[in-house]
Each structure stands twice: as structure tokens, then as C-alpha cells.
């Protein structure tokens, strides 16, 4: 079954405490090449059947209303992923 992937990231101007904790842990494990980490969310919406334009529009609306909070987050990607 196809899935619609929605990626949500904290807005650039919002401090990301989780990313900050991760970037602090990386060098302790020897991963010293990374100067920043920002942690976002990936949602996978499973669709029974074909992904129509209407269903994709529904996913975009859901992404903007429920899956993200526009005050602190941006929806950075909404795409259809065919079954592997």
C-alpha cells in the first residue's frame, strides 16, 4: 500500500533542545564532523488504494493543522512513497 510521508522540522529560529543534546553527545562517541543537529519528525500515512490528488490534499491539510504546530514547526516535505 502506498504511503504519504510528512516531514516536520522545528522552525530555524526556534532553539531545538533535543538537537542540542544530540550534538553534544556525538563527539563523545568520536563523531567529530558535525557542528549542529536539529531533530524533526517523520510521519508515514498509509493509504488503502491509490493516492489521489484529493487524498494528497487531505494529507497536506492534516500536516498543517494536526501534525505540526505552525508557531514552532514547518512542514518541510509531503510526498508519496510507493510500496517498496
Amino acid at each position, binding site marked *: 500500500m502506498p504511503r504519504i510521508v510528512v516531514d516536520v522540522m*522545528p522552525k530555524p*529560529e*526556534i*532553539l531545538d*533542545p*533535543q538537537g542540542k*543534546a544530540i550534538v553534544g553527545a556525538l563527539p563523545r562517541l568520536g563523531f567529530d564532523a558535525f557542528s549542529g543537529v536539529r531533530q524533526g519528525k517523520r510521519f508515514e500515512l498509509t493509504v488503502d488504494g491509490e493516492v489521489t490528488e484529493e487524498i494528497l490534499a487531505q494529507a497536506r491539510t492534516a500536516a498543517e493543522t*494536526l*501534525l505540526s*504546530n505552525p*508557531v*514552532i514547526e514547518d512542514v518541510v516535505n509531503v510526498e508519496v512513497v510507493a510500496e517498496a
Partner: protein
Amino acid sequence: MSSNEIPLIGDYSTPDTALSGARIGVVSFPGTLDDRDAARAVRLAGAEPVALWHADDSLGDVDAVVIPGGFSYGDYLRAGAIARFAPMMSRIVDAANSDARLPVLGICNGFQILTEAHLLPGSMIKNDHLKFICRDQVLRVENNSTTWTNQYGIGQEITVVLKNQDGQYVADEKTLDALEAEGQVALRYVGWNPNGSRRDIAGITNAAGNVVGLMPHPEHAVEAGYGPTTDAGTHTGTDGLGFFASVLSTLVGGTK
């Protein structure tokens, strides 16, 4: 809620019938923790607490609403994000924005729900130190003209419990400037900012003053023996009672 449902704690000499006749709703969502404490605070202040269920579609005849703390829907997705779409929240948003200006107080998770519902600006993210924190917290009353803070003095410092993991108040600079300019910062952290909140903001009000949200818990500081520790003794603090006395004062037409 009848009085015999209230757990037997502390001084149980509270009158069975509300002194003021005011009815204050307390909303429960799946995962709400502090609804009983909020209801008891309402009763101690002299009003009748009314249990409201998130899935119900009517506010009944309540005169005000408290959205208590906890972890509605496990804080999954974001704190308050799912609770915001409950039928009861639609009624609360409509009533708060109506001409009647229903008084609404959001405490902790309730504050998060109010921001998700866009009744209050900004949002809460994880504490800057990433830890859950529980402590007695000093706050300064920055606006004492709201429905929920009018029994405090301007600049008065009060001590109530703070307990949360997602308590860092954030908003863009323009919104923060507007909040400051319009006097919508209702309460600020004093002494130490416990979560990285912008401009030490602990609580805010809407422009009309009927909707107030704050991260600390005034309902846990209403009864001697169970409140924060003060100079007067261990767990003697009752500074939180002022929030409930304030709404009662507004509802029954009292003056300061």
C-alpha cells in the same frame, strides 16, 4: 461533582454548598492528572466545581472553566496537540471568544492546550535543560487586571509549584514584543528561569483578559499542609488561591 467524591485531605471543614453560587467547570481529558486538585481549589475558593468530559459537546451552565494539568493523550505528537481537537475544546474556544467572554484558565498541560487551540499565542517546547522539573517556584504578577489575577497586587511575588518537562515558552520576537506592549505577560519567573522560557514568561493572558494560561500550578498551593514551603513553615503556602478568588470576584461582581 458531589463533595463526597473529593479525597479526604487536610482541613475538611469546607462547606458542602458553594458560598458564591458560581459554577466552575474542570475539564478532564484522557491523561489529565490534576482535575481533582483543580476541583478542590475551586471548592476551597467558594465555588461549585463541575466535572466536564472532553468528549461532551456542551458546557452546561458553567460560569468559568479550568483546563487542568497532566499529560493529555500522553503528550504524544506535541503537548496538548490532540486534546485541542476535543468537542469540549470547540465549545470552550467559542465561549471564550463570544461576547460573554467565558473565563478560561489553563494550567500546565491546560496552557499547552490553549496555545495549540490558538486561544493564546506562542507555544511550549521542551525545557532547555531537557529534564522534568518539580520545585516551588516564585512568580511575579505582571498584570493584575485579568479575570484570574485581579486579587493579586501588581508586582506581587507568589510561590506555587512548578512541574513539567515541556515548559519552555516560545514565540517569535514580534509576538513577544506585542505581548509586552499590551501587558499580556501575566506572570514571570523570579530568581531563576526554570526552563528557558523567553523573557522569563510563566503565564500570559489574551487581550480581553478572560483567558489566562500558565505553566506553574496554583491549584497545588491552596491549602495549608499541602502547599509550597514558605517562611511561615513547611508546606504552608496558599498563594495559588488568588487565581480562583479572582475569577469568583469577577463572577459575583466583587471589587478589589
